[in-house]
């Protein structure tokens, strides 16, 4: 004998509340009876959310690994060789540019910044590191340290790592050529070019370069870091430097970050993938609920014929969208978080709570938008059709 559904009538006196409960009951009952179908959709949404969150986490980590050194720099303005197109690695400036920049109105301090990649030897392995040479007391180094202090002597270094690479602690040592660098300070999120990054005094940097070159060559600068005077506008000071000094291009830090090579490419590339994934989630959800609605059209006609309002039949659909898409999104987020945690060494990325919540909400919203086709179909159900053969 088939079991008869038990409605919670005895506990609910209010008619509206009872109707709402009934709608929830119908929505849940249908999910339970067609668990396979709804599980497949939940799985598909979950996998798509997994991909979305994975992309966002990796893109965020990569971008920070590329731009961190510029983003967290103590410099308000950065001065480049005008032919470098704001690419720090292509920029080469004569040493005297620092003095020229220091004389410009609005400049409180100017400091050299030179950048090069070296192969360093650690206790475990050889690793490529980016070395910044500059004035540790000036705008050549990260604005804030998370541990330790600024370098005060030759051979001392601030370390900052991309989470995709090896990390170093205070007092760790690496060998570059025949020179040893000792980590005396650590800065968060100040890596460059997705590589372990060391900030050393300019003299130390020059020695590393000259040893590699095998001769006492003149070591040029890559950039000049500028701290602007109190109350001065960084953009105006940058424009003034560009005007006054031949062969240079100065920009404020935000512009410099946006122009770091590779960062824009990553943002664009992943943006395309986000777009495609959001569209796929919307289409898949919309298609599923539309087919489901078409298949139960007869039942909906019957419900309307026995007195159910349009809202009574729409609400279960909306509830199902929220439940299924919500479960898929949350499940995908949990799996993504677990996978990224497990693969921390490979991807170095973690999900931020804000990114996760925003993505889950966006997917939920898109799910509701996608269900508009199904809802339109439900709203078009005419109870009179119950009186015709085709109706039920």
């Amino acid at each position: 004998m088939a079991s008869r559904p038990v409605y919670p009538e005895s506990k609910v006196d209010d008619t509206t509340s009872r109707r709402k409960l009934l709608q929830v009951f119908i929505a849940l009952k249908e999910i339970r009876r067609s668990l396979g179908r709804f599980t497949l959709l939940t799985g598909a949404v979950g996998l798509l959310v997994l991909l979305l969150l994975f992309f966002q986490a990796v893109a965020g980590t990569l971008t920070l690994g590329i731009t961190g050194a510029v983003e967290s720099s103590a410099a308000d303005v950065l001065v480049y060789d005008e032919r470098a197109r704001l690419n720090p690695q292509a920029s080469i400036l004569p040493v005297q540019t620092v003095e020229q920049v220091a004389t410009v109105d609005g400049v409180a301090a100017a400091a050299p910044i030179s950048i090069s990649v070296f192969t360093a030897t650690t206790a475990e392995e050889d690793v490529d590191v980016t070395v910044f040479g500059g004035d540790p007391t000036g705008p050549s180094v990260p604005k804030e340290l998370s541990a330790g202090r600024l370098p005060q002597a030759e051979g001392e270094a601030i370390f900052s790592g991309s989470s995709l690479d090896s990390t170093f602690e205070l007092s760790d040592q690496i060998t570059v050529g025949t020179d040893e660098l000792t980590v005396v300070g650590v800065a968060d999120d100040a890596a460059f070019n997705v590589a372990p990054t060391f900030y050393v005094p300019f003299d130390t940097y020059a020695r590393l370069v000259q040893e590699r070159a095998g001769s006492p060559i003149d070591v040029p600068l890559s950039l000049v870091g500028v701290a602007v005077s109190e109350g001065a506008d960084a953009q105006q000071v940058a424009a003034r430097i560009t005007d006054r000094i031949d062969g240079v291009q100065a920009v404020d830090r935000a512009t410099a970050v946006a122009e770091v090579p590779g960062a824009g490419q990553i943002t664009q590339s992943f943006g395309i993938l986000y777009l495609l994934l959001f569209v796929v989630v919307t289409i898949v959800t919309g298609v599923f609920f539309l087919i489901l609605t078409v298949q139960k059209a007869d039942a909906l006609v019957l419900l309307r014929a026995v007195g159910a309002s349009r809202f009574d039949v729409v609400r279960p659909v909306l509830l199902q969208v929220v439940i299924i898409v919500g479960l898929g999104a949350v499940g995908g987020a949990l799996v993504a978080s677990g996978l990224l945690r497990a693969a921390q060494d490979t991807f170095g990325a973690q999900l931020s709570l804000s990114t996760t919540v925003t993505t889950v909400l966006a997917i939920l919203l898109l799910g509701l938008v996608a269900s508009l086709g199904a809802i339109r179909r439900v709203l078009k159900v005419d109870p009179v059709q119950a009186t015709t053969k085709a109706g039920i």
Partner: protein
Amino acid sequence: MRIALQELLRQPGRFVPVGVALTLLVVLLVVLGGFLDGLELNQTGAYRAHDNRLLVFADDADLQLQRSRITGDTAQDVEAVAGVGTVGWLSQAASTASPASTAAEPGEDAQIQDVIVFGYDQSTDTIPAPPGDRGAVVDAVLADLIGIQSGDTVVLGPSAEEVTVSQIVGDLTQGAPTVWLSTADWRAVIGASDPTALPREQTTQALVVTPADGNTSGLAERIDTQVEGVSAATPEQVIGALDVVQSQSSTFRGIIGVTFAVTLLVVALFFALITLERVGLYSVLKAIGARTSDLLLGISIQAVVISVVALLVGIAASLAFVAVLPADLPVRLLPSRLGLIAVGTVVTALIGSLFTLRRILSIDPAEAIG
């Protein structure tokens, strides 16, 4: 089987929703595949240009060009190994390039391009012999980007070193477009613009070895054994040793795998719904003698046809989509990748359609009579 095809022809609207979803998934797969190939090819052009040769690095460089330093004496030792035909030097440095016409006009920096400048000695099937006398071989990507042709003058680096384009070759992008100079010119140009990037005198970053008999088999091992401090490898092995390329490739392959899983679920979902609709029809068909395998065959054919149509539309849409993407994005659509995606999609759709097997097996022909 005939019924399945008839249904597709007579009621195509019924299959449009899943077709649209599959088409979008194909677009996603093709774009992901484009990124996978684009990222790899854009970073390995110079190595791929040395096919059928060996590249020799310092043995502590992990086959990384920028880490490696090899002295002239070591190069002579390599040349003395049996089976080695010729040995050339190969070095690289990052720089900028622009047509000489814009170099004098600082405001027009749109035509200045980041490049990798190679110094080399040996021609390959792709790269002509070093021109010398400040002549440069330029890859086609750079030529397009800054609008130059053979005979034009290009300026390199912040010191605006002038070189003349002697020949434009195919795409040799190695993280950035490439310029190829003779080793002597390379040292002069890089020494003037960025002396910090130069290896010491009589030192190169890597060697290019052309086998005497054209056969690289066993030669790398002989070089490794007979010459101390070097590691010889084929271009494929060098590309395989690039951490960035490998981690990017494995990430994108994983993502493509998950996308195929989504495709599987979408197809399975659609056919689960379709089968539910057709339970009555299938009962009748079974009652008049149709076997479960016949019904499954019909569903499978529909899945294959839908996936093929989605593939055709999806690939066409992807080509159009990729064509409007910014040129600097690393997306390359290769026929081999498209082929793999096509096979993968059809097989996935086929497997997805078979998810209905349990449902079809449970259909009782007696249901046909109520």
